[in-house]
């Protein structure tokens, strides 16, 4: 039993290190994709909210001061990057062009392999977030009403780990439809857009109408950025944290089970044809 669990973990670790080597193989691509794009995304979000605050003349929007919003967005954007891993489209492309074959012939599970390739970007994003937080503190933009605690930070990182798994299983679940429809790039793209808005990565969920929030709270979307970000910052109350964790775990398990079932059925239809 121990061996059965250890082998997928070891394989994930091996693929993780190979993927890290791959990500750092091209210097320009590394800096543009993994560093510059995150910084640009963050700067755009901050500029937009600074303008919104200036135009409205309000000192607080949805309970956030400008500094509080900057801090939340910094964490939510990098957490969003972390949960996204390799992003959408990869799995459906592999089904479409037959490159999924290589995962089927090597003696490791597709999940171990894909998770191994998914996680390095998550770790890079986490590291970038810590640097960005240090920057905010050093530049004096840290909101006085927020103080980080080690316990909440650790709880946030654990939640983030499950958020990564949730995103990963959701992607596999959705993109397994390519076994039936061949090309579902548009659907993957639509999911990505939905995630940006509904996960709280672009706008905190407090700014959504209450009925939308009620619906979102039982959906998986807030658990992909908003929930782990709030936990990390310690801005979630204990009651909501205790209520949210089972929902996060439930969605993760459901997405895992759903993805296993649909992928197993899809593999019966796999032809391995393509370029």
């Amino acid at each position, binding site marked *: 039993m121990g061996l059965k669990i250890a082998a997928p973990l070891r*394989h994930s670790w091996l693929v993780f290190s190979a993927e890290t080597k791959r990500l750092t193989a091209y210097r320009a691509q590394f800096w543009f994709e993994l560093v510059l794009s995150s910084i640009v995304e963050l700067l755009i979000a901050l500029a937009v909210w600074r303008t919104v605050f200036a135009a409205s003349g309000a000192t607080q929007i949805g309970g956030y001061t400008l500094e509080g919003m900057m801090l939340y967005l910094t964490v939510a954007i990098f957490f969003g990057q972390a949960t996204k891993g390799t992003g959408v489209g990869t799995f459906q492309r592999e089904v479409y062009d*037959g*490159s999924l074959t290589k995962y*089927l*012939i090597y*003696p490791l599970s597709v999940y171990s392999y894909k998770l191994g390739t998914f996680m390095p970007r998550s770790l890079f994003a986490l590291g970038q977030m810590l640097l960005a937080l240090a920057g905010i503190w050093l530049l004096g933009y840290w909101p006085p009403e927020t103080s980080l605690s080690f316990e909440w930070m650790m709880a946030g990182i654990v939640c983030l780990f499950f958020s990564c798994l949730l995103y990963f299983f959701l992607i596999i679940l959705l993109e397994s439809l390519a076994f039936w429809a061949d090309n579902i790039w548009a659907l993957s793209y639509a999911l990505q857009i939905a995630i940006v808005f509904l996960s709280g990565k672009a706008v905190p969920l407090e700014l959504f109408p209450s009925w939308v929030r009620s619906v979102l709270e039982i959906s998986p979307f807030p658990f992909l950025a908003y929930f782990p970000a709030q936990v990390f910052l310690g801005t979630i109350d204990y009651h909501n944290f205790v209520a949210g964790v089972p929902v996060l775990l439930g969605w993760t398990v459901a997405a895992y089970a759903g993805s296993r079932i649909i992928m197993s059925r899809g593999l019966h239809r796999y*032809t*391995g044809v393509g370029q």
Partner: protein
Amino acid sequence: MIKVRDLHKTFKVHEKQAGIKGSLKSLFARKWREVNALDGVSLTIEPGELVGLVGSNGAGKTTLTKILSGVIYPTSGEVSVLGYVPWERKIAFRQQMSLVMGQKNQLWWDLPAADCFLLLKEVYEIPDQAYNQRLAEISELLEVKDLLSIQVRRLSLGERMKMELIAALLHHPKVVFLDEPTIGLDITAQRSVRRFLREYQTRYKPMMILTSHYMQDIAELCKRVVVIRKGKIVYDGALANLRTRYENTRLVVATLKNGVSPFDHVGDTAVEFNPENREVRAHVSKHSIPAFINALFSAHEVDDLSVEGEDISTVIERVMRHGP
């Protein structure tokens, strides 16, 4: 051992009418056609055999290879490879097999081959000493020892295929599926890959199933061939017997002693006569050769005579295209 019994694989393919009208129509209603890629295939391959799997495009070779290696499921039929059902994809099965696809890159494109091999070493749990010894041996046989630290994408097609072969053989698999391993390679690289495969098979005796469109690969490497035509096996046996059974004609070349007037027939057989070197060439049906030679000797004084068997590639191609 590989045992295949009454294997069928049917694909459903979408048929679209040409043109914009057909494209728009297909958005609402699609016409599907069933294609029998494999139609009742049965065969047995013994340990240590190197079998050539040949057939025209779309004959079902690659489909059979994919089913045997567990990549795709069959529609019906029974398959046992090394005692496993391939499409169950048990880890123990995958640890003992390899699939090399000449048209697909299975290594990590952006990493040097050495990094890919290190990853495979761990995946296949190859002990350090065995790994070092095998890598040195195979890379030397394939003459790519100096290229191991170069990114895979920067290698030539031939070099890349050699790296794919190393990756496929590092764990000493008991069964190796080679799907067109020489496709697109130049003559020198093809020869080098063939030489290596022969050498490796002799040394380690894995079961090898080789699919290739280059008849030279089959003729040089395989004692046994399986010819597939429209999803059915039309020949399964020794390569040498294939010639004996299906060779239609032989080439008779004769040099005449004296110059003679041009002629185009000997008896009833059409011939090519070259007055400059007095050479007569004729493709003569196997059974008519004695009669043809008698007729030739009766009509002319012959200085030299040879009878050549049909090229094995021609024989295989004929069986592939028209059946036995």
